Each structure stands twice: as structure tokens, then as C-alpha cells.
């Protein structure tokens, strides 16, 4: 008779999803961006990295979509990190509207993902 050993393995999977608009994030494209975010939230994702590094232009409708993403993640107990745009004029608009205080700003996707790992209670 062998001594059967029970090893309980429990895995916690925390999904951190990066979403990176590479063209204009404006009144025309914002609805598609919102749809993508909603799809992620509905599939259970609540930690998002909004990577604006490749976003060359953003209007207030695009900015509204970013705030909406943050709200939805928080409502589900999650959070958002934002990666600074490379385009200087877009950076300045984020400062002018104080979006850089509303969002936790990071310099890269790696930094953004890393900053979640300390903050998440798995």
C-alpha cells in the first residue's frame, strides 16, 4: 500500500491587459476603443494598461473614453495605469487637463505592469 500524498495546488491568475491605440484617439475612433474596453471588462479583465506611447492625436472624446475605462476597472475592483505618449503635444494636453493626476502615469508598459504587481491583492 502506497502512502498517497495529497498536494493541493491553487492558482491565481491575474490578467493585466495592455491596450495601445496606435492611430488618432478621437471622436471617430473612441466608440471602437470603448467597445474593446467593454469587451475586456465583460471577459473579466479589471487591470488595464492604457498605452498611449504610439498615440499621435487625442481629442476630448478620446480622453472621455480613457476616463470611462478607469471608472469601469475601479467599479470591478481593478485599476488602470497609463503609459505616457511619446508625442510632446499629447503629453502637454494630459498635463493641461490634469489627466496626469487622475491617472497613474508610467514611462513604459513594463513599468506599468510592474507597478500593478505590488498593488494587486491576488
Amino acid at each position, binding site marked *: 500500500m502506497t502512502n498517497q500524498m495529497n498536494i493541493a495546488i491553487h492558482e491565481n491568475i491575474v490578467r493585466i491587459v495592455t491596450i495601445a491605440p496606435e492611430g*488618432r484617439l*478621437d*471622436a*471617430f475612433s473612441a466608440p471602437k476603443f470603448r467597445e474593446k474596453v467593454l469587451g475586456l471588462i465583460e471577459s473579466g479583465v479589471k487591470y488595464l494598461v492604457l498605452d498611449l506611447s504610439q498615440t499621435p*492625436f487625442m*481629442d*476630448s*472624446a478620446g*480622453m*472621455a473614453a480613457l*476616463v*470611462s475605462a*478607469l*471608472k469601469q476597472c475601479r467599479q470591478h475592483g481593478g485599476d488602470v495605469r497609463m503609459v505616457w505618449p511619446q*508625442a*510632446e*503635444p*499629447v503629453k*502637454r*494636453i494630459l498635463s*493641461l*487637463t*490634469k489627466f496626469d*493626476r*487622475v491617472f497613474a502615469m508610467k514611462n513604459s508598459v513594463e513599468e506599468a505592469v510592474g507597478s500593478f504587481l505590488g498593488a494587486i491583492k491576488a
Partner: protein
Amino acid sequence: MNHQASRELSHLLDEVNTNSPSDPTLALTPDGSAAAAITLDIPAEVQYVNILGACACAFLANLKQLAEPEITLYNLELAIQEVSVNIATHAYANSRGRIHMSAILSHQPLKITILLQDTGASFNPAVVPQPHFGELQEHGYGLFLVTQLMDEVEYKQIDGGSVWKLIKNLPVSVNS
């Protein structure tokens, strides 16, 4: 454009440069070098409003003397985008229409004047509150950006529509 509207437009153009003829499609001074004007007319749909800002930026693209051209052109494009998205979504909320833009480039001092005209519903910008900064507010940044990024912003109701006048002074690089 109806008659009253085009009279208003001429009047606004006259303010920009007192030498100007009333036809905004003509250069505004006799020799044509001191000022230049373009006009553009597009469907007031969110799919097409990007044309307005692109066109204004292309107008200035060969002005090599601009200081910080990337920032200046971006801010001009963004202000035009905000006003015209508002026209497409609010002024023409329940209807279809057109947006008519005139852009006048004038010198000494170098500046660009943008007129954006619609035949939709008008409103009172004075009652629009400032955004609550630092809060999770989605809307209300549009007009704030326009006033922050432009040097002068004026809104006028005219018979059968509205005209926005945006003026941006164009700083000149010391190297040029």
C-alpha cells in the same frame, strides 16, 4: 450659406483685416502677400471633421519661421477638432448639415484666424461649467481646451446658425 450668414462672415473677415474685400475666397490685400485665405466646406459628420484641422495645419506647413511648429500646429488642430465635433454632435444633434471653415493667415503679427460656421442649433457657451479637474469626469473638456489653446475665442449666433472665431498668434522662431 444663407444671406445673413454670409454677411456676418464678411463682417468677421473684415475685422481680421480692414483691407479685405468681402469675398473670403480672395486674398485679403491687393498684393496678396500680406494675408492669405482659404475656405473649406465639409459634411458635419464625426468621420469627416478631421479634415478641418488637417487643412488648417497644411495651410501653415510651409511657414518655416514658426517657433515650436509641432506644438502650435497640434494645438490649432485640436481646437478646431473640438469645436467641429461639438458642431457635428450638438449643433446638428438631430439633423444633418455642413461645416464651413475660413482660415485667414495674416502677418505683422503673424496669426491665423479660423471661422467655423454651421446652420444648426445655437447655444450659450457662458453657461457651460469648467471641468472638475482631478476628478473622474468624462465630459466637458472640449470648450476648456479650445479657450486654453487659442488666443481668442468668440462665439456668435447668426440668423440660421452660429459662427466660431478662433485666433491663434503664431510665435516666430528667433533663428529665422
